[in-house]
Each structure stands twice: as C-alpha cells, then as structure tokens.
C-alpha cells in the first residue's frame, strides 16, 4: 500500500510542476479508442458491452518489445511464466495456465505446437506489425469458442499505411543480465518493414525480423566446457528466431479484403550438463554429451473479406490455414573434437489447422437492435511423437499419437439498445465436436451509460477447455507403473461474471481522468488431474475431479495532462482450489488464497527535445498454493506453498531526430534485478519417498538488462 501512495504522491507533485508545451511527438494516448474484439462491428471502447483493455502501440514501442513476452509482464492479472531451460514463456492468468487463455491474431486463433490459440509461446509472437493489443478478461466461449476460459488476447495488425512508401529499419542490441558481446552473448535484433500503397485501393506490407538470443550463462559455462560437474550448457537456452510476413490488401467503398502470410522459424539449442565418458583404456576417457536442438516452423495464411451484402447485411469472413511443426534433432557432441555426430531429426509435435469463421450482421437496419449470426469451423490435425509424452503400448514400445479434432460451431449474438444508455447483449454458441460431447456456451452482457461519463457493465460468460493429448492418450503400464490417460474425459466447464464501472472525464484544465473498477468471479468445474485411482497395485489416471473458483477486484486509474500520462492499477485476486487426491482420501482446503498485484506506468514528454521518458512498474504480491507432499508417516498431505513477492520495473527514453526519421530508444528491463524467486514450502513437506522433488525456486528473469534500439523511418509519397 505504501508503494501505491508513493506513486500517487509522485503524480500529484508532477501535476504541480507542469509546464505548457506543444506536442510534436505523439505521446498522448487516446483514452477513447475503437475496438473490435468481441464486437459485432468495430466501435468505440465506450460503447462496447465488454470491458476491453488495450495495450497501445505506444506501450510496445516504449518497452522496446520485440515479442509478446516483453510486454505482458507489465499487465495486471497476467503472469508470464518463463522456462529458461527450454526458452518458452507462456501466460498465466488468475493462476490458470496458458491452456485456458486464447491468443488471436486479427480475430483468429494462432496455432501453437500443441494448441489452437492456447499454449502459445509468447516469445513466438512477434510484434513488428502490431497496431494494438486488445484483452478481454473472463469466459468468452460465445464469440471465441473453446478454451477462452480466463480471457482472450487479440493482436490487431497494421493494415496499410499513411504514405505511399513507409520504410523502417531497426537494430536493437540488448544485454542479457550483465552478459553481452557482439558474437556470443546478449540479444541481437534486426528488422525491416516496408509498406507501399499502390493507389487508394491496393496496399502491401512486408516485414522481416531476426532475433538472436545468445542464451543466459549465469553460472553455466557454455557448450564447450569439458568438466563433468553439471556446469556445462546454459541457464537459459540460446534461441534464434526469424520472422517474415507479408500482407496484401484491397479496399474499395465498403469492401475490404486482405491476405496475410506469416512465417516463423526458431532454433533452440539444449546443451546437456551431463558428459558421457567413453572407455578408451588404457588412455583416459573421452567425453561426449547428448545434446538436443528444437527447430520450429510456423506458416500462417489468413484471407479475410468484409463488406456489405445486398447493400445492407454486413459480412466478415476469414479463412485460414496454419501449421506449426516442432522438430527435435538429437545429436552427440564430442567435446574433444567439437563435432556433432549421430544427428537424428524427427518431428516432435505438430499442429495443422484449417480454420474458418464468419459473421453476418445488421439484419434489421435498425440502430436499436443489432443481430449477428456466425459460424466457426476448426479442423485440427495434431501429432505428438512418442518422445513428446508418455505414449507406450503394452510391449513398452513408444507410440506416436496422431489425432484429428474437428468442431463446427454456430453462434449468435444480439445487441439491443433499449435506450441511448442501456444496451443488452445476449449470446449463444453451439459446438458440434467430433471427439467430445457437443458443447455450448452462452453469455449475457449489459451496459449502462450514466451521466458525467460513468459507464457500468455487467456480463456473464461460459466457456470450456478441451482436454490435451497428455490427458487423453498417456499410457505407461508395466510391472512397476500404471499411468493412463483417459479418452473419456469431458471438457472442463467455466462460468465467469463481471461487473465493472468506468468513468472518463475531461477536466477544465485540459486534463483527462479515467477510472475503471471491475469485480470478476470465475468458476471452473470438472478440472482434469492425474490422480491415484487404485492404491494396491497403484494405478494413476487422468479424471475430471477438481474445482477452481476465483474472484478478483481490480481498479485502474489513468490521468493524462499536458505532457504527462500516468496509469496506476491494483488487483486483488482470490483463488480457491479443491484438489482431490481420489483414492488417497484427502482433499485440499478450498479456502480463498489472496494475492495482490499493482502496476503503474508514467510517461513524460519533452516536446522541445522530441523525447519521451517512460517508467513501468509492476508488483506481484505473495502467491499461495496448496501442493501435495508426504508427511513423516509417509502419508500424502497438502502443504501451503508460498511464492515470495517480486517486482518488475522497466524504464526507457525515446528520442527522435530529423523530423522523426531517426529514433533512438535507450532503456533498462528488470531494474530490480530479479532472477529466481523462492518458493517457501509448507512445513513438513520433506519430499521423502522414492521419487522426491528437488528444491524449489521459480525462474523469472535473467536480471537487469539494458537495451539500445535504433530505428530509421523513411516515409514519402
């Protein structure tokens, strides 16, 4: 609370010290924007029935964010989970992982190794061509289908440009913690964007990006270290990424069409800390290591058309084909000769999706009632190699899993304006599934505009999460083990409720204040977990068993005055989980465990210098969670684990030269120098037994880092 007060005081102080200056750099964020996510038609954020949060292009620029992971750290209610050792970072919202949160690009879900919109590695989402990011919290099953449980994030890409030619080239150099060198340390980014308008109708955007993360050594010694003491390799794996995208668009009158192509390539190297000796008697042993490389390729095609039918009905149709394939290449690295041998490359996981969605609206030509009819078709072909999970047959031979998931959904939404102030929005989706029981989702939204800029919203939404491959198809049965997936699992069901108030007012002094207060409740039932279903002999199986409840109160305050822009937010999240250990006969305490998050950003523009200063801060309070352990008697018991609080702070200065042609951003990430955060285990959780767990620390970051970004913009007509 002390922090909040300090920030507020800083804000007040700043307001007093303001000086009148003229804008030359675009610094003022619009407090009223047009949003599209979950809307029948694009409309102002004020009129939206949903409470839409926006991450602006300005924020992305100021954080020098190259991918989604760089920007979401600062967002309230979202935690970015990094796995430095495989280089993936995923989103966790309200304590539920990335399987419950859906990421879309231009309103269609983005394929990942294992999901459609879900389980997306945030570092694989490049932000070069992004206009803004819209986030809606809560279950959005009606408009966005399966797995939109905790919320959705929709990336709106840039279409067309202001000039005949828009060319922009960027070089970005970053330290990784305190490690940097041009050749083998740090992070090195290069990118190029070209936009061209052929005429008023046709435009094309082309871009490329190369992001070379050389890994974080920490106390590790890199790949050529030849002592077998667990120090070989990297603390965070080196990762090299290539992005290429192209968009061709046409627009005339009410008709718009675009085709977007996106390529993503990635190479992650794992250097094993375990050196394997080779007997070379009578000479000393030689050593090799069993190393691994993951190669990812993603191809994304999206064709979208929208316009008017019979000069009345609005239609919007998207067709997309996406494929992401992750290959593993195993090889032996001989330390003495530094040569690779026995290279064996195979497809590890892949997902190929045909997807189409479309809507028809504006049936009544009536401003009071809008009605939308939509469909969504998803045809996913997923592949897991036997090496990607525990998929064995009875002879203990590994089995590849290849399954096709199809769903054909129809949905309908009506938006009825009972008056200028009151809008009501019911929605319904029915989903025909080939693998699971047919699902449905429903929603109801209300929006009321009070006087003096006060807006009130209420919504109810339902969604569901479909089981993943591990949960469905794991099979490992031998004389010592019996662990089984369950093809009869049913999707987990969620319901969310949100009430929110927003107030925006323009002050006479020219300032603007916006306040937002939201209370959310989310309930997920039939959660899937792997539990002991028989004690002697022991059998483990995935079943629908656990319960989850969450409530959350959050508030954000935004002040814009002259050259200042200040945002302060706070969220209190209470999570209740009932974990049931089935045959062991105990369930966890389902009391609500609370954690607090605060965030704030301050930016100040100095027009005379063409310079913008920005500071981002987020505080993550202590988080608590029940985890199973074994007591002295050897019985299973629940212990309350605590994750210590930690803070993120990023700061940057951006200055433009020569009429905005040249832009320099200098900044620092992770000013509090966070690397790992300790998990305090509940007393007594000694973790004995035959398969004990190691010490607990959560990997969060690689420490304080600095970046310099140079951009050259060339715009002409």
């Amino acid at each position, binding site marked *: 609370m002390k922090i909040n007060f300090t920030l507020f005081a800083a804000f007040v102080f700043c307001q007093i010290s303001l000086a009148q200056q003229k804008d030359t750099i675009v610094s003022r964020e619009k407090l009223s924007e047009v949003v599209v996510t979950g809307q029948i038609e694009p409309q102002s954020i004020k009129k939206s029935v949903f409470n839409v949060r926006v991450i602006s292009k300005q924020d992305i620029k100021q954080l020098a964010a190259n991918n989604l992971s760089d920007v979401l750290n600062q967002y309230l209610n979202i935690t970015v989970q990094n796995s430095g050792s495989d280089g993936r970072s995923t989103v966790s919202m309200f304590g539920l992982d990335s399987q419950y949160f859906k990421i879309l690009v231009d309103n269609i879900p983005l394929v990942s190794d294992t999901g459609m919109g879900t389980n997306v590695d945030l570092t694989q989402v490049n932000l070069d061509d992004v206009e803004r990011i819209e986030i809606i919290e809560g279950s959005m099953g009606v408009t966005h289908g399966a797995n939109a449980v905790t919320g959705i994030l929709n990336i709106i890409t840039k279409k067309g440009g202001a000039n005949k030619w828009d060319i922009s080239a960027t070089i970005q150099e970053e330290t990784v913690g305190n490690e940097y060198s041009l050749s083998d340390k740090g992070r090195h980014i290069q990118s190029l964007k070209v936009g061209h308008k052929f005429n008023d109708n046709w435009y094309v955007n082309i871009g490329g990006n190369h992001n070379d993360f050389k890994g974080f050594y920490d106390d590790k010694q890199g790949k050529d270290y030849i002592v077998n003491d667990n120090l070989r390799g990297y603390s965070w794996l080196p990762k090299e990424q290539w992005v290429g995208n192209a968009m061709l668009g046409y627009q005339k009158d009410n008709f718009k069409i675009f085709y977007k192509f996106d390529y993503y390539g990635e190479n992650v190297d794992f250097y094993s800390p375990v050196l394997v*000796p080779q007997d070379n008697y009578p000479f000393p042993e030689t050593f090799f290591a*069993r190393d691994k490389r993951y190669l990812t390729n993603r191809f994304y095609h999206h064709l979208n058309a929208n316009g008017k039918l019979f000069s009345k009905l609005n239609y919007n149709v998207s067709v997309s084909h996406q494929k992401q394939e992750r290959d593993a290449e195993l090889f032996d690295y001989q330390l003495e000769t530094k040569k690779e041998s026995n290279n064996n490359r195979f497809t590890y996981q892949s997902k190929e999706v045909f997807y189409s969605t479309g809507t028809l609206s504006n049936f009544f030509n009536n401003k009071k009632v809008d009605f939308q009819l939509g469909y969504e078709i998803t045809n996913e072909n997923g592949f897991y190699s036997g090496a990607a999970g525990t998929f064995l047959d009875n002879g203990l031979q590994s089995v590849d899993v290849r399954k096709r998931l199809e769903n054909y959904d129809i949905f309908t939404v009506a938006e009825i304006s009972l008056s200028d102030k009151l809008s009501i929005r019911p929605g319904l989706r029915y989903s025909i599934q080939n693998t699971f029981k047919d699902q449905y989702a429903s929603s109801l939204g209300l929006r009321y505009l009070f006087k003096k800029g006060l807006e009130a919203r209420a919504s109810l939404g339902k969604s569901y999460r479909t089981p993943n491959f591990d949960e469905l198809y794991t099979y490992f049965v031998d004389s010592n083990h019996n662990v089984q997936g369950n093809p009869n699992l049913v999707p987990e069901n969620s319901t969310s409720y949100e009430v929110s108030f927003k107030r925006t007012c323009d002050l006479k002094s020219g300032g603007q204040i916006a306040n937002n207060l939201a209370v959310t409740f989310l309930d997920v039932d039939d959660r899937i977990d792997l539990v002991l279903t028989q004690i002697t002999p022991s059998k483990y199986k995935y079943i629908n068993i656990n319960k989850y409840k969450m409530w959350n109160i959050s508030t954000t305050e935004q002040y814009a005055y002259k050259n200042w822009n200040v945002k302060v937010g706070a969220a209190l999240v209470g999570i209740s989980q009932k974990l049931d250990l089935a045959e062991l006969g105990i369930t966890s305490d389902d009391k609500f465990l609370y954690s607090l998050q605060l965030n704030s950003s301050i930016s100040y523009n100095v027009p005379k210098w063409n310079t913008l200063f920005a500071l981002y801060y987020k505080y993550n309070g202590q988080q608590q969670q029940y985890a199973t352990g074994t*007591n002295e008697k050897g019985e299973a018991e629940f212990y309350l684990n605590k994750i210590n609080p930690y803070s993120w702070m990023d700061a940057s200065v951006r200055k433009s030269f020569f009429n905005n042609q040249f832009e320099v951003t200098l900044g620092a990430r992770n000013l509090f120098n966070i690397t790992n955060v300790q998990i305090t285990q509940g007393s007594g959780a000694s973790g004995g037994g035959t398969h004990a767990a190691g010490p607990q620390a959560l990997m969060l970051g690689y420490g304080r880092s600095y970046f310099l970004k140079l951009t050259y913009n060339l715009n002409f007509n």
Partner: protein
Amino acid sequence: MKKNFILILTFVFLAFTACNNDDNAPQSDVAVAFAEASYNLTSDATPVQIKFSKPAPVAGTITLDVTETAVAYTTDYTTTPAAASKKVVVSFPKDATSVEFTFNKIKNATATEVKNVVFTISGTSFGGQISSNKTIQLNFNEAASLGTALSPEVGGPLEPNQVYVDLSSGKMTSAVRNSWDLGFYSGADFRVVLNNSVKMAAKQLKSTNIDEVQVVDETMIIAQGTGFPEQVDDSAGDITKTAIAAVSSTDSDNKVYLLYLGNKPAAAAPVLGKEGAAGGDTRGWKKIRVLRSGSDYKVQYADIASTTHEEIVISKNSAYNFTFLSLIDKKVVNVEPQKNQWDINFTTFVNVIPNGATMVPYFYPDYVTNNLNGNAKAYQVLTSAFTYEAFTLANVDNTKFTADQRNIGSNWRSTSAPGPDGNPMTQFVLRTDRFFVIKDPAGNVYKLKFTGGAKADLERGHPTFQYAILK
C-alpha cells in the same frame, strides 16, 4: 597510414613466429600405452601390445626398459625383437594404431617361485606422450592381476544375465538370471535364499502339509510401492535374515511357504534408453517345504493347486556359497563360481528402501553386489576426497569395508538427467564423481571405476569398468 602499416606488419610477423613455435613443439598429441598392466604367461610365445591413442603421425620407434625379477635373458626368456642392454626397441609404420612385440617364455616358474619381467616405456622417436599403462608386468607364476578394463555381458536392456567378476584373474562368469529359483547355503547354517534378481517373494504359511491346496496372494507382488520387506531376503546380504526361516532339524517346525516366482525379462527390447529387466510375464507361483536330511536339504515342492508334491535332495558343497535349484526345471543348476573366485556380481536386485515412513521392496536394474558370503567387501570414495589416479593403498580406510553387499549397489549410476524443459528426465547417467575400493577374498585391494553403463545410443545394460591393484 604508415603507423597502421607497421602495426599490420608486426601482426603478420607475430603470426608467423607463432606458427614456427607450434611446428617445433616437442610434444605430440598422440599418446602410447600398454594395452594391459599385467599378464600371467600361459603359452610359450605371448604377443605384447602397445596402443596409440591416435594413428601414429610418422613411422618411428618406441623404446622399452626391462626390469627383471629372478629371471635372466636367454635362460628364462627372450624377446622379438631382441633386447640389448636391458632395452627393447619396437618400430612401427606411419598411421599405426598399435604395435606388438613377442615375449618368449623359456623356463616356467616352480610353485613357490616369484618370477616376472616388467617393461617400461621410456621414450618414443616422435615425442609421443606416455600414458598409463606405462608399464606391463609379465608373470611366470600365477599372480593377481594389476588391473585392466572389463565389460560384463549382462546382455543389454533386458539384462538377462548375472555376471560374476573375479578381479584378480580378470575372469567373468555369466549365468542366466531366469534359470534358478532357490539357493541352498553351504555354510554351517541351513538357510535358503530367493532369486531376488527376478523379484521373488516368500510367505510363511501356517500349515506344514505341502499337499494342502493354496491360493495366490497378490499383495506379495513387488511393484511400485507394493510388497513386504519380510517376504524378501535381507538386502544387505545377512544370511541369518532370510525370508524363509532357518531349516530346523525338527520337521514339524518347517512350515510350508507360498512362493511368488517374480517376473521374466520383457519379451522384446523396450524403448531405447529404458530397461525391461522385469517387464515380462509372471513366472508363476509355487509352494515349498524344506527339511533337513542329515547334512543335506530335502525340498518338497509343487504347484499351488496340486494335492501331491515332488521331492529333491540338495547337498552342501563347501567350495561354493550356495547350491542352486530350479523349481521350474526341477533340477540343480550352476550359477555362481566357487566362493573365493568371484568378487562382484552384475545383476538386477530387489533392495528394501523407505517409501515415506514404511519400508518397501524395490526393483533395481544395473545393480552390483559384492560377494559378502565369500568375504569380498567394497566401499565408495568420492573424487572430492581423492582422485582415482592419486588413490593408493595408504588411503584405504579398512573400517569402511562394512558387511553389506550393496556398497556398490546402484550408487555408480543414476537414472535422472536434467531435461531441456528444466525438469529431470529419465535417462541412464554414469556417476563420474566416485570410484570404489574392493578387497577380494584373497586380500588383494583394488580401486575400481565405472566407465559406462549404456551404449552411446543410450541402450542400457552395457556396463564397463576399469580397475587397478593398490600397492
């Protein structure tokens, strides 16, 4: 510009001189060593091999110094090429990976004589490094091995064999794990052990009537966390703590036992990297009753549903620890070598370990026991205390030779490696931070280090080790 030019010139010059220095280096990166450290001469002409760590860079010679113990050149032995003034010079062509000379034994040693010749590599014509084994000792008499490298054939991921190793002779004896069920102790006590390499368990019944019909008891099956410690033999190897009670001379004290015969190895090799040592079909159930018959054992046995039984008499043989019986093949089978002719056994094993607060039997592949009944003992040394190379007889701590056959056990390897996602993954890992000290039944003390347990492609069940005598 001129300045720069001079600078560049200096660099070029430096680069040239650096190259020259390299060319003149006296040390080659090729090492030479004897293939063995010692050898007991059996035939008249014995080839002695010297190995190169890489193909020889040039043709040349290796010079060996000769040290004799109670022997004389030409009377007791000669060499080809011949020795001159206690030196033998062996020549080799370019690209040779090994070279041999021949040792010709002329006169044998008598039973009490100690006669040997030691050859020491004193130099090479090309500046090769001299690695251990720098010397080889050729014994005319029967002498304990000074050490070598061995690869016990346990037979791959199903580990079908038990391999008994005698360090002092370098001899390995293999037995099929699945071929026997019970071992009858040859010592003073009347004791019966179970074949724990196949996960056997024995439960004492109330009855003394072998012809009573019995039913299976599935709680006896040893699986993850199941089974009972009292139904398996003492895992430390204490012969007085077997699952089957000492055989009494009073017949009415000898109860019937229900035997679970465990599991066979899996029918086919498992996924590469995993083991399938007990992944196969069940070996079934039997009932037995063991009685004394003078100084012999009398075994009554039958299938559990049978109302009749068969009988076999087993005699003690004091040269061996045990006499082994197969209940399935109904005959005595050969398993262990004589009790003073093996030191360590590569086998699968049921250990008893804590599972929470209770103790449970737990199955281990890639296990090594020492011959406790034959008085071979072992202990572990971490390289943080001593390196393998620097460890000598003076460093041996005799108090650590405890009466436990598991002192090597599974300590030489683990099955958990850090995975790319940060979580441990199952994978055979050789522990190179330790070695073992072994005292054999004759009192020779060896240091032993494991150099492998799986093939390069991770196929399990391929252990290799090296050992050297401590002096």
